[in-house]
């Protein structure tokens, strides 16, 4: 305001000038309002898109956290399970439990006699249902000869039907569940033998080709192992590099060159690091394929420049007066760094590290080259076991033909987003609690 007024006094007559300045002022305010409006619009758009994304993921995925179960009165037929009566675990483990389940179905629906129909009937439960019986018998062999209500996971098609993803009103040929199967399910439902339960297996099981059996625990463990390797390798190396470049290195053409290269490395597409991993870690070092160790090494390389840049920025932010004061009372250069500069810069470095790790958590491309995009059922138990990671699991499920994998995919995305939110929240908390401003 005052500027405009002062400017006006210098030349032209005041009356004429006042009108002009008012118009100009209005224009400037209008421009400011428009600019703010653009900003608000941009934020609304971003929030809207994020909302759509979250809504589509959550609305598709939340059903995966419950599962449909079918309860059957199972007679643990000694003839079928252990005809010799030895109770030898090897015999018990090898028995034909599918037949036991089929018998249980036949007792529930005695009118079904044709072979094809019986098959359709036993298809109501998951093809992995026999594992439940095997585990039950191995855990307590005394159940043999008794009848017990056992809850089996429903097959993916039945699960989809109960969750309303398979429409009932289309012609029979157009859906994967037959009219007869729907009638059986409804009969069981009326008798209270169909229930929904929290799908704990989704969090404790490994991958599976049967959607109702598939879980993310294998991928979560693989992710954890990979991230540990990434952190252990990238953090100390990056901090050492950042400290040297910032505190000790002379400023000359070599350090300039190194700096430019580090900045460029941060922008290299991640698949290139995967190719490097394939050539160097698998080719030269002969490390095993699909191992979290190699995955972690590749992601560590990718992460290094990010942490170095964040580390240097937060080292730079420590005021020179701290260093000078420490030097003045006789501290050595190393003491200045380890006692004063590094602790003060640490919150910033940690924030950068966590954001880098969150970035690495979402990577699939570099892992493709080193064989971590694979079907792996067994839960990895070490750094060299075959393993996969969460984003890869999402990718693999999204590519599967079975309809029931759609909800699994979305559920896995929810879990991955959960991890990312936790990591980012951690970064924010660290910054809030320990950051110092000068």
């Amino acid at each position, binding site marked *: 305001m005052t500027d405009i007024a002062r400017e006006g006094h210098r030349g032209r007559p005041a009356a004429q000038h006042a009108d002009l300045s008012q118009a100009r002022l209005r224009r400037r305010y209008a421009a400011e309002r428009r600019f703010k409006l653009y900003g608000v619009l941009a934020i609304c758009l971003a929030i809207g898109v994020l909302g759509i994304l979250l809504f589509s993921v959550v609305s598709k995925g939340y059903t995966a956290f419950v599962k449909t179960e079918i309860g059957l009165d199972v007679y643990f037929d000694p003839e079928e399970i252990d005809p010799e009566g030895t109770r030898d675990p090897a015999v018990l483990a090898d028995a034909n439990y599918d037949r036991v389940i089929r018998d249980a179905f036949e007792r529930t629906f005695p009118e079904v006699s044709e072979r094809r129909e019986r098959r359709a009937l036993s298809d109501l439960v998951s093809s992995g249902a026999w594992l439940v019986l095997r585990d039950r018998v191995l855990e307590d062999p005394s159940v043999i000869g008794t009848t017990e209500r056992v809850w089996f996971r429903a097959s993916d098609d039945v699960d989809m039907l109960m969750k309303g993803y398979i429409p009932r009103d289309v012609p029979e040929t157009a859906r994967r569940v037959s009219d007869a199967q729907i009638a059986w399910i409804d009969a069981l439902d009326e008798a209270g033998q169909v229930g929904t339960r929290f799908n704990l297996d989704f969090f404790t099981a490994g991958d599976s080709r049967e959607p109702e059996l598939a879980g993310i625990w294998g991928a979560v463990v693989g992710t954890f192992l990979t991230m540990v390797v990434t952190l252990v390798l990238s953090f100390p190396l990056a901090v050492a590099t950042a400290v040297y470049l910032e505190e000790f290195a002379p400023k000359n053409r070599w350090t300039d060159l190194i700096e430019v290269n580090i900045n460029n490395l941060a922008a290299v597409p991640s698949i290139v690091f995967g190719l490097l991993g394939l050539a160097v870690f698998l080719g030269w070092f002969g490390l095993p394929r699909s191992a979290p160790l190699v995955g972690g090494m590749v992601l560590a390389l990718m992460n290094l420049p990010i942490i170095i840049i964040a580390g240097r920025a937060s080292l730079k932010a420590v005021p020179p007066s701290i260093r000078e004061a420490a030097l003045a009372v006789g501290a050595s250069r190393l003491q200045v760094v380890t006692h004063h500069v590094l602790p003060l810069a640490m919150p910033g470095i940690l924030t950068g590290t966590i954001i880098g790790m969150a970035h690495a958590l979402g990577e699939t491309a570099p892992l493709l080259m080193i064989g971590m995009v694979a079907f792996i059922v067994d839960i990895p138990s070490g*750094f060299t076991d075959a393993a996969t990671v969460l984003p890869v699991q999402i990718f*693999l499920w999204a590519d599967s033909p079975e309809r029931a994998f759609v909800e699994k995919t979305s559920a896995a995305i929810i879990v991955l987003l959960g991890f990312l939110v936790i990591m980012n929240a951690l970064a924010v908390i660290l910054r809030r609690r320990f950051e110092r401003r000068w």
Partner: protein
Amino acid sequence: MKQTLAIAALATLAFAASAEARDQIRVVGSSTVYPFTTAAAERFGQSGEFPTPVVESTGTGGGFKLFCAGVGVDHPDLSNASRAIKPSEVEMCAKNGVDEITEIKVGYDGIVLANSKQAEQVEFTVEQIWQGLAKEVPVDGEIVPNPYRNWSDIDPSLPDTKIEVLGPPPTSGTRDAFVELVMEVGCESFPEVEALDEDRMEQVCKTMREDGGFVEAGENDNLIVQKLDANKAAYGIFGFSFLDQNADKLQGSLVSGVEPTYENIADGSYPVSRPLFIYVKNAHAGVIPGIQEFIDEYTSERAMGEDGYLADKGLIALPEEEYEQVREKATSLTPMATASN
């Protein structure tokens, strides 16, 4: 200090691991065979005797590259393939010491041209599909850039909707098979194309149009399924198992008067089908535990049979007689007769 120790520990671990033997079967190769091999692998692992094999989806060609790289624990034991191994690949294998390979034909796969159930089901001939999708087609004796906009421009009996087909990219085995079984067959019946010299003919036959009539929709077939559901006028090209799983939303178009059903693909009357294979490195049998048993599981009646669990996943089972032969050859690990032997 702690950090130095950690790095040292990690490095030791790395080198200790690389020397260690492998007790897990490793499979690489085609993404089309992947759903079937993984299903068999899982069943095999459930028995509890051996660890579940690790199956990677690398594509057929990528699979052979890894498979043929050598003998030893660093190299995969089996390779999935959506086509037979090429002589050049056999040669590459032999050069690296992989000379005994067992070929196992696991079944058939149909490639379908499907659209939304809410649109009408259409009958195409192979020639019409080619005319709809090729970059250049013969019109009045001349090879010209594809002028057809609507299907009805090709033949009035076809629907009056825009030509819009979603299909796999060139890196996909499904695309290779589609080009071989539909495009190449479709173009042959045009005398104008026959008259061209060999290179030009191949170019005319195999090149897909790029003006929006054919859209490369990525390797993800589920994406194509979702897009077809949203766009009633569009068609999609993908494997039979995706049609089978989405039968409430999609219908397969008839090709040369035959509908893509399990039965029609199995008896060979549906023209667009191809055999699927797995290849076994014989030198690894007995070295990596469980290979023989895994092959037994894969080729067993309960897996590969007509009512087997692989058929549930959309694999078209072999006819009875052929199955017996395949099973026999597989369980005895009879190596392929190669030119070099």
